[in-house]
């Protein structure tokens, strides 16, 4: 029964992880930029939700209505001001730039809000079913993840701009021939990626304490998931998230608790050795 409970918990966390990674994979897919600041945008969202809650009493779930558009705007500003310049540069250049952005965001947060950890106490009742208990906050996080994944899927398959993003991801040169403006698509993808990260921050506020320099942990998690699933593949990101979520939770049953974080990384390395471009990755990339 404990196993079933952990699998359910892992699935729920995995969905959230997957959505976190969706933002990263979208940006990678369109402009081949590895965004090291991804986790810092999560923290920015989390802090926004924290202050909205503390100062105005806005419920963290409601504050997504603010953090998502805020993240979108922030993403577009960062794209236009900085990231745009390195889209065509070698991979390392964008890595270096986003590292700089990450340092800047985390150190500004540190300076403004002090290094103290922040948490809020909003709890939802646990969900009991079939002998399995799922903490209410985790269930809400999973529900959020499902909504975002569904919305993104509809956007990517039904709208012009969504299709344009997919076209550029698959083959940027032929997308160019089809009359798609790659600049606009990149801007949009970066905006959506940051919006997702920032809204994940609101949900994270329901689950744990945050602190200004905690972004790198989310970045690392998103990296691992994205590569596990196959860079640029949204479905792969969700799948990778679920794999990591379930493995992370179930492994603690069989291994010393302190050693469980290694499992995700070891799985990733093994997957890459067997399938050098991830589970859902394109062949021969």
């Amino acid at each position, binding site marked *: 029964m*404990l196993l079933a*409970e*952990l699998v359910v*918990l892992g699935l729920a*966390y995995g969905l959230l992880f997957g959505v976190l990674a969706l933002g990263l994979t979208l940006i990678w897919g369109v402009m081949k930029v590895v965004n090291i600041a991804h986790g810092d945008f999560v923290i920015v969202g989390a802090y926004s939700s924290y202050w909205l809650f503390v100062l105005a009493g806005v419920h963290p779930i409601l504050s997504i209505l603010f953090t998502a558009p805020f993240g979108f705007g922030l993403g577009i500003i960062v794209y236009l001001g900085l990231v745009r*310049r390195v889209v*065509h*540069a*070698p991979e390392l*250049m964008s890595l270096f730039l986003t590292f700089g952005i990450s340092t800047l965001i985390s*150190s500004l947060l*540190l300076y403004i809000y*002090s*290094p*103290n*950890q*922040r*948490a*809020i*106490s909003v*709890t939802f009742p*646990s969900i009991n079913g079939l002998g399995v*208990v799922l*903490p*209410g*906050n*985790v269930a809400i996080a999973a529900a959020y993840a499902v909504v975002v994944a569904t919305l993104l899927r509809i956007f990517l398959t039904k709208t012009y701009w969504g299709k344009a993003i997919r076209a550029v991801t698959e083959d940027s040169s032929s997308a160019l021939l089809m009359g798609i403006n790659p600049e606009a698509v990149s801007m949009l993808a970066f905006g959506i990626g940051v919006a997702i990260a920032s809204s994940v921050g609101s949900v994270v506020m329901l*689950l*744990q*304490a945050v*602190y*200004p*320099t905690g972004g790198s*942990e989310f970045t690392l998690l998103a990296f691992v998931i994205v590569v596990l699933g196959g860079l640029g593949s949204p479905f792969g990101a969700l799948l990778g998230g679920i794999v990591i979520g379930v493995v*992370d*939770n*179930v492994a*603690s*049953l069989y291994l*010393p*608790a*302190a050693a*469980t*974080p290694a499992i995700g990384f070891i799985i990733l390395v093994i997957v890459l050795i067997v399938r050098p471009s991830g589970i859902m990755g394109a062949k021969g990339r």
Partner: protein
Amino acid sequence: MNRNTYKSHTSNSEMLAFGESKARRAISRTAGIGIVVLLLIVALGGAYYYTTTLGSATTSSSSGQTTTTTTTTTPYTGPTKITIGMTMPLSGSLASDGVMSLDGLKMWAASVNASGGIYVKSLNHRLPVQLIYYDDTSTASVVATDYQQLVAQGVNFLVAPYSSGLTLAAAPIAETNHLLLISHGGASDSIWSKGYKYVVGVLSPGSQYAIPVLQMLENQNSSTPLKVAFFFGNDAFSISVKTGALAFINSTSGKFSVVYNQLYDESATSYTAQLSQIQAASPDVVIGGAHFADGETIVKNIQSLGLHFKMVSLLVAPDDPHFLSDLGSLANNVAAPSQWESNLDFTHFSPYYGNITGAQFLSQFQSSFNMPPNYEAAEAYNTGLVLQRAISDSGSLNSTIVRNQLSSENIWTFYGNFQIGPTGIQSGHTMVVMQWQNGAKQTVWPRAVATSPFVYPAP
């Protein structure tokens, strides 16, 4: 345009200098530029250190010369201030602890200087104190270089950075330069097992942390052995707490039985799996924790899983005032071993030193920094008090003399007793146990200082 810039960046044609003199000239030029830049760095660095280290030495000696020739009365030619050097983790993973500690020291320095400084008998002068602090970014290598910088600047005494690991990185520099290093936030017992002479601690070492909690439980008249789950984080400090707790349990013969004993990963997003396993072992009490965020998450997870234990005692997190504001009613009945609580009163002990009580410390800190202090701030302030006492008692700014003076001090401050063992380890100070009761922090152990009875078992 950008594309072109990157092209020229990646064009390392000189790497493949296939015999072309042009390429070779390019290497020469770039190497030349490189060397000039390097020289500039060395020169700038040298100038900086000259002004900060040698510079200060020359100004004091020259001022001495001028005064001796022009005045008739015996002028004061000694140092004009007591300099205390340290690094603190002001950024990085330990930043919140580092900032809190630094604030405690700043508050001490301000109060000393407001009262005119410390009287140094050997100089027959009252000198103000000056804190010199750098950010070590929670990184050991920065500690290593910055303590050398402090030594080079000629500081009189050193205060250790927050945390055991960083203290261990600072210790050899203090030791080889014969400078006193007072540790206020390094609780690992291993610091005092290396044979350092100049490293002194003001706080109870990690091995002592869980003992009052266990003593308190021992007192709760249970006839059968109390079932304990140990659930500590995986870090040096928490492990030393667990080691001390296990040693204590082994010495009590049959009062406790350990039914669960695992370390956890402090960065985990949830501890549900382990908590379920703990529940399966059906312990009476859970003793563990590590830092702030993980402590809060554990309490939240216990609530969301609907688990109930007679007592939950965690390290660090419950002692932080944010614990209540973050968790609200969930905080109730959670206990923690604590180095210090503001409601403790030691004024009836003697010799009492420092003209400040716990309550005064609380209110002064609150008004200076606009937030309530935690025990890290108190430890740091107490570090200042202890140093101040040893300087006035020995009448010297010499680290070796002050270190020897510390060996014979047995004083009380708002933080409790100060007395050190032969290795420099703190032996006088004792831990207390705090517990959240109806939204208020209460000291529940030892009975002599308790502000409220221990709520056990938790309702």
